[in-house]
């Protein structure tokens, strides 16, 4: 009995060591960022002026318009990407599962393809497409959302696929239809509510990805948060790092809030 006890304690110790090391690994860079942004390079000692600047929204908007613009764009992009991704994937994947099971492999392949294509190659391929997008829809940064949908496809596909596997879509939709439900209603009232966790995690991953995206936006000369931060870094290193830290915290809060919303609805 005592051996089992020590065994368990050993395992607990190992667990905490791993968690501790992981936390240190992730927290040290963050601490470094915080330390750097509170350093007073001119007078020595500590200063909170970068953080007070950042919190003062009207001032930031006035002095660093690119930053405010980038922030707004990234927010809009996250929203657009999630909405378009869900509208595209959920009905498609459900339909393939119900009516065209032979196409499963094809759809999976197409959805996972972006993983294998480096962002830079994607941009080269997308350039002619975006010439048309710009021509038809204008130059707005928000149209980057279309490219981002492609970028998040693999992650969203995996989450939604797991969700669809967990329920018997075929029987549920047949039951609903026999009771008089149209396809739209089957989708909205039967499939979607039972996919909530999957939809949520797909949205999670998409938001996280969009908030951190730099390459495509930069190469297309569009200004999202990351691009704005990069540009700011060239003129004001400390403020740029402060923005970086703030955006990390912000993304964390957004994801946390989303998971909270998901859980609350469930109970």
């Amino acid at each position, binding site marked *: 009995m005592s051996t089992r006890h020590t065994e368990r304690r050993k395992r607990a110790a190992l667990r905490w060591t791993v968690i501790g090391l992981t936390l240190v690994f992730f927290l040290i860079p963050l601490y470094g960022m915080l330390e750097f942004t509170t350093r007073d390079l001119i007078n020595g000692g500590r200063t909170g002026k970068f953080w007070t600047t950042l919190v003062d929204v009207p001032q930031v908007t006035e002095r660093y318009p690119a930053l405010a613009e980038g922030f707004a764009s990234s927010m809009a992009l996250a929203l657009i990407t999630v909405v378009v991704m869900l509208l595209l994937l959920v009905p498609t994947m459900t339909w393939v599962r119900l009516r065209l099971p032979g196409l499963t492999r094809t759809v999976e392949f197409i959805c996972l393809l972006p993983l294998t294509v480096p962002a830079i190659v994607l941009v080269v391929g997308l350039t002619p497409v975006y010439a048309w997008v710009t021509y038809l829809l204008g130059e707005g940064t928000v149209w980057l959302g279309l490219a981002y949908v492609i970028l998040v496809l693999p992650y969203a596909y995996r989450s939604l696929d797991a969700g669809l596997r967990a*329920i*018997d879509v075929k*029987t*549920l939709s*047949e*039951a*609903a*239809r*026999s*009771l*008089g*439900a*149209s396809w739209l*209603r089957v989708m909205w009232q*039967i499939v979607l*509510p*039972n996919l*909530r966790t999957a939809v949520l995690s797909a949205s999670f991953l998409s938001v996280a990805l969009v908030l951190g995206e730099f390459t495509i936006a930069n190469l297309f000369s569009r200004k999202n948060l990351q691009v704005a931060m990069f540009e700011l870094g060239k003129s004001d290193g400390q403020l740029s790092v402060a923005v970086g830290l703030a955006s990390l915290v912000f993304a964390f809060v957004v994801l946390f809030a989303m998971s909270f919303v998901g859980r609350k609805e469930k109970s």
Partner: protein
Amino acid sequence: MTATPSPAASRGTEVRLTDLTRVYPGNVRALDGFTLHIAPGEFVALLGPSGCGKTTALRLLAGLEDADGGTIEVGGRDVTNVPTSKRDMGMVFQAYSLFPHMTARQNVEFGLQLRKQDKATRHGRAADMLDLVGLSKQADRYAHQMSGGQQQRVALARALAIEPQVLLLDEPLSALDAKVRSQLRDEIRRIQLEVGTTTLFVTHDQEEALAVADRVGVMNAGRLEQLASPAQLYKNPATPFVADFVGLTNRLHCRVAGGVAQVLGGAVPLLAGSAGDGLAIVLVRPEGVTIAPVGSGGSGGSGGAAATVVSASFLGASGKIVARLESSEGVGDLVSVQVDNTDVTAYAPGQRVLLAPRGDAALAVSAT
């Protein structure tokens, strides 16, 4: 019947499936000229081996699959090209099909909600239906909080709540264990008689089909072999397939002459459709054969056929003796005989016995 606000449910609807054909990829003819007429309020079971097309027939009637030929009429209306959602069919599936994010009550109310019924009506109807299947107390439970049998009951309540023109049961008992299965089977019959909805029940379990249905249709290779009452089906099988598939049957070599088969040292009158004069195989039920120990002199004084007991099994309510006929050329036929459970102990393997036909009419097929 008294006038109720639900004429469709109380009187039942007539169903006519005419010459239905359904071809699956690879030119598999799941249905091949399938014709079935169900009278208003009737309970018809479709019985057959897997792959015989019985489920396809039901899915075609439900509109879940399209027919490649033939017509479907419900209540005199041609619904061949009407989508599932407009056919007004209540359906219970083999797989558990309750919507997982809804309680039992919400499941039952779903169809009513689609029919734009107000909240009070919906509630009342759902309560009535759950009461009918004996689950009033479980109304607020989710599917994962109920047993399989309970889930199928709720599914039945949900299907009946919309007062469907036809109730379709697609092997609803297959996933349940034996006891719940026979319980729910009887309950389905009781409820069907109570609401009077025309019902099509698909199953591969003959006991189930014979126990609940007004008429049983035996299917084979996409066609209806015979449609008759359970007793008719059992006693007067129209084809060898039906005789073989429904109940247990002994296949015995015999000689047919003048509509009578000479077998086991006795005579068996033959049913219509039997083989003509000459050598044949007669299909005799285990309860159509009598057995007596050699030398007892009691039963079948006229003789009978000598055989050797191969096995004697106690089956609870009855017993079964298997004996091999003694034959001058080669190995004799094996014969199963049903006996009273108290008589099983009177026989032991190796013992010599005399078998004789009781004289119930049977079907004979030509020996090929």
